[in-house]
């Protein structure tokens, strides 16, 4: 599998200026709204501490809570399945659909099914899958993965969507109006809910003490997907579990405020039992999570509640767009999750960060995201995944900077032939720096030389 080159993809995204500038503005606004929302909750930092502790406790007792959940869900009349990996998950979904001879499936947004590549798996087996979240549907119709975990099509302009819908649905291309386009989507998706043989959702939380799955949405499509068809399948990662309803309250208060600054979403739905005459299945998916739980440095990434606050605040994400990461999870949280799936393919992602630390400080569950990004860089060194050109430059830099003699030769203003510019400049054809910025001019006399000429020699004269 070839390496994802986020930097190169980012250049493409920035080419027309329009998309980058619009994305930056929208997401920065989300960040500002998050700040305002947090400001209105005096105990905000306590909530973050509490949320982090709850997740830490639950993850430390994962088997216990999962078994409690399974017992309670079964008592509610739900069938619980366990999937070790993406393939097992997809097989379970396909088997459930096949048993009922279902060929049409409506889905609400689920990052887990993206991770498991469930849609292509089912489509190649003859299942017609309709995404019902507006953003996710836009991405499905455009044959693109989501670019953001709460706003899958957030990188697109209204004009892009008007153009797409006109091609797919025959709507008016000139009407780049959000309300009009949402109506086009609604008219085309509502019939799918009625026709579908099964509905699939993800889950934001699993409540162990009640066996319930909780979804947090704005469009109501998860409720329709879950409640209209007789067969309901719900796929959730095992790290989504929390002990009880009182813990849910902590997360509900943090989740939407962190994501968009709203106090709560339009729908916070608790699904506990199958509908009348229907069936409800919950698939508990591992897919690398228990292995991650065993990683001493990186297990805290499992605390993530998928609010995307880290993406919204990330200055690199806002300029690059989510698709540039070439991965299911993107932005700061993506950088620390993806290498656990494939350390080679995603070996460059930890370098798509300035390590500014804003992500860590907006994270509602206090994941030390930027510290983990730094740690992943060291892992890439250990796994011999540093790009050769960079590695070689760093070997030279290390030799020069560890030797006072070589350093003096390299920086001496008289040694132009051997002059090696320090820092950033060492790893680099300087033209990379100079593409969009003027190159700093080396001084005629380095500080070292100035000190020698003006202080040491002066002291000698004075006999000091």
């Amino acid at each position, binding site marked *: 599998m070839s390496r994802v080159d986020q930097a190169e993809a980012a250049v493409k995204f920035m080419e027309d200026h329009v998309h980058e500038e619009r994305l930056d503005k929208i997401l920065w606004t989300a960040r500002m709204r998050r700040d305002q929302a947090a400001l209105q909750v005096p105990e905000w930092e306590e909530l973050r501490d509490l949320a982090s502790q709850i997740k830490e406790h639950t993850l430390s007792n994962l088997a216990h809570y999962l078994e409690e959940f399974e017992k309670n869900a079964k008592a509610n009349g739900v069938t619980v399945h366990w999937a070790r990996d993406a393939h097992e998950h997809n097989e379970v979904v396909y088997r459930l659909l096949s048993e009922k001879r279902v060929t049409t499936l409506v889905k609400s947004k689920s990052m887990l099914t993206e991770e498991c590549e469930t849609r292509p798996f089912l489509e190649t087996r003859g299942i017609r899958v309709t995404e019902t979240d507006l953003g996710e549907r836009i991405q499905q119709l455009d044959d693109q993965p989501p670019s953001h975990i709460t706003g899958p099509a957030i990188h697109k302009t209204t004009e892009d969507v008007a153009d797409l819908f006109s091609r797919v649905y025959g709507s008016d291309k000139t009407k780049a109006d959000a309300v009009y386009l949402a109506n086009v989507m609604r008219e085309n998706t509502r019939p799918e809910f009625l026709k579908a043989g099964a509905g699939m959702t993800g889950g934001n939380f699993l409540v162990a003490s009640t066996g319930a799955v909780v979804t947090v949405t704005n469009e109501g499509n998860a409720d329709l997907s879950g409640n209209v068809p007789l067969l309901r399948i719900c796929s959730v990662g095992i790290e989504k579990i929390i002990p009880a309803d009182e813990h849910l309250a902590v997360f509900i208060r943090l989740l939407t405020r962190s994501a968009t600054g709203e106090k709560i979403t339009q729908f916070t739905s608790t699904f506990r039992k199958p509908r009348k005459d229907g069936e409800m299945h919950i698939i508990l998916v591992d897919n690398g999570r228990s292995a991650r739980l065993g990683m001493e440095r990186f297990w805290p990434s499992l605390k993530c509640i998928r609010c995307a606050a880290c993406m919204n605040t990330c200055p690199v994400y806002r300029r690059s767009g989510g698709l540039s990461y070439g991965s299911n999870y993107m932005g700061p949280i993506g950088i620390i999750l993806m290498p656990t799936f494939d350390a080679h393919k995603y070996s460059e992602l930890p370098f798509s960060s300035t390590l500014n630390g804003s992500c860590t400080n907006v994270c509602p569950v206090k994941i030390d995201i930027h510290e983990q990004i730094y740690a992943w860089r060291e892992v890439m060194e250990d796994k011999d995944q540093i790009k050769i050109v960079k590695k070689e430059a760093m070997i030279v*830099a290390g030799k020069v900077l560890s030797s006072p003699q070589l350093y003096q030769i390299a920086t001496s203003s008289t040694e132009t032939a051997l002059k090696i510019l320090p820092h950033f400049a060492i790893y680099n054809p300087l033209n990379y*720096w100079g593409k969009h910025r003027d190159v700093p001019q080396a001084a005629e006399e380095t500080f070292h030389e100035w000190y020698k000429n003006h202080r040491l020699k002066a002291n000698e004269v004075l006999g000091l």
Partner: protein
Amino acid sequence: MEVALMIPCYIDTFYPQVGIATLELLERLNVSVTYPAEQTCCGQPMANSGCYNEARGTEENFVRIFGDFEYIVTPSGSCTHHIRNKFTAVADSPARQRVQNRTYDLVEFLHDILNIRDFPWATFEKKVALHTSCSAIRGLNMASMSERVHDVKFSKPKKLLEGVPGLQFVEFERFDECCGFGGTFSVTEEAVAAKMGYDKIGFMTKAGPDVIVSSDMSCLMHLQGCARRLNQDRPFLHIAEILNGVTL
């Protein structure tokens, strides 16, 4: 008080005037300053790139050179952050812990150790846009961060500049968003880095400053490169230059 002056490699090469200002300022404050000639770098360029094996020799050199000083002062939040919080390529030892505990950014040293608030010799009748680096804010806690909305607002570099007669501040949007430098990031991801820099310059320019000031020269090197490309010739100054009484 005996202080070892650490001059970051990029200041040594590109901005010796910042090193000179730092030295003169400390001496003005009756600090006895030694500049160990065998110093090179803190190791951050390699460590920040993941290559901690390549950073080891440089960090070892740093511990060897600076191990015995009471204080190590450097005009760089970024280097201080590396030494204090990320100095792990070199093996742990009492000497390593000593340099980690005794290294201060110049602003911290003036603000917290010397407790200086007034710079009467440094009259500066200009409007200043102050940029504080992410290493200084979120790595060294030199200023409150915008993400922590309930924290008491403070800024050590601002506090110091408030003691400069005549100096005025301009406020600008997204004041603590990263400028895009990010060490080797500025080269490996130059397009995004430059866009972040252009945006930062744009927000600052709107506020109409005479001068752009920071306690981190690496951010300024990047921002100045962006500004020059945008045909702006507004001066960029390190905080040490202002506190030492530079005139424009």
